[in-house]
C-alpha cells in the first residue's frame, strides 16, 4: 500500500474514534440528575429572559418558535431533561449548572401557575 493512503487511514481512524466517543456519551450528565429543589426561581426568571424567552416568549407565554410553557403543568424532571437533552429545534444544554437549576425552578413555577 502506497504512502498516499496514510492521510486517509489516519483520518478514518480519527473519525471512528470520534464517532465511538459520540455514541457512548462518555461524560453525559444524565447519570447524575439535577435535584429538583436546587433552583432559585427568581434568579431563573433573569436567566430565562436572556436565554429562553426568544423562543418561548416573555414569561414562557409563547409567541416564538418554542411552545408556550406558562400553564403547561410541567414537572422539574421533564423540564430538566428537556434542557439537558434538547427537543426538536431546541439544542441540548442551552443552560447548565446553577443556571439550569434556576431556570428549571422558574419554568416549573410559571407552568403550574395557571398561565
Amino acid at each position, binding site marked *: 500500500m502506497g*504512502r*498516499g493512503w*496514510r*492521510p*486517509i487511514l*489516519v*483520518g*478514518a*481512524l*480519527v*473519525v471512528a474514534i*470520534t*464517532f465511538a*466517543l*459520540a*455514541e*457512548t*456519551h*462518555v*461524560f*453525559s*450528565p*444524565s*447519570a*447524575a440528575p439535577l435535584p429538583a429543589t436546587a433552583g432559585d426561581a427568581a434568579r431563573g426568571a433573569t*436567566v430565562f429572559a*436572556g*436565554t429562553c424567552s*426568544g*423562543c418561548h416568549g416573555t414569561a414562557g407565554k409563547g409567541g416564538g*418558535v418554542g411552545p408556550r410553557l406558562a400553564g403547561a403543568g410541567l414537572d422539574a424532571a421533564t423540564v430538566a431533561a428537556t434542557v439537558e437533552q*434538547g*427537543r*426538536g*429545534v431546541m*439544542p*441540548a*444544554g*442551552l*443552560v*447548565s*449548572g*446553577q*443556571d439550569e437549576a434556576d431556570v428549571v425552578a422558574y419554568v416549573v413555577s410559571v407552568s403550574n401557575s395557571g398561565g
Partner: protein
Amino acid sequence: MPIGDVAGRYSDLVTTVFSSTIVAKVWLATAALVLVAVQLVTAARIYGRLRFLPERGAVVARVHRWSGRAAFVLTLPVFFHCVTILGFRTPDARVAVHATVGTFFYGVFAAKVVIVRDRSLPGWALPTAGITLATMLLLLWLTSSLWYFTNVRVGF
C-alpha cells in the same frame, strides 16, 4: 471523580466566563472561524495568490501556522462538549448535518496534519485538505453559531 461530575466541572469552569456552555461553544467556534479565514488568506499568499497583500515569506508562514494552532485549540472545548457530553444526534436536518460534519472534522484535520508532514504527496493534496477543512468549519458554524445568533440571542 465520577464520570457524571466531569460534565458538571466543565460547566462550572466554562460559566465563570460565559453564561452557558452553549454560548461558550458559539463564541469559540466563531473565533476559530475568524482564524480559519486568516489561514485561508495566508495560505493563498503562500501559494502566490492575493498579491495585494504583504510579501510572502517567514512572517506570513508564521501567521499561518499560529492561526491554525490557535484555531485548533479553540475547537477543543467545543469538541469535548459536543462529542463527549451531547453525543451524536439527528433530531432534525440542522443537527444531523452538524453532527455528521462534526464527526468527520477532526479526521480531516488529522489527514491534513499527515499531508503537511509528508512531502512525497502530490502538490494538490494540501490545499485540497485545507479548503475541505475550512468548508467543514464554515458548515459547522452555520449550523450552530449562526443558528444560535439568529434564533436565540447574540450575547455572552
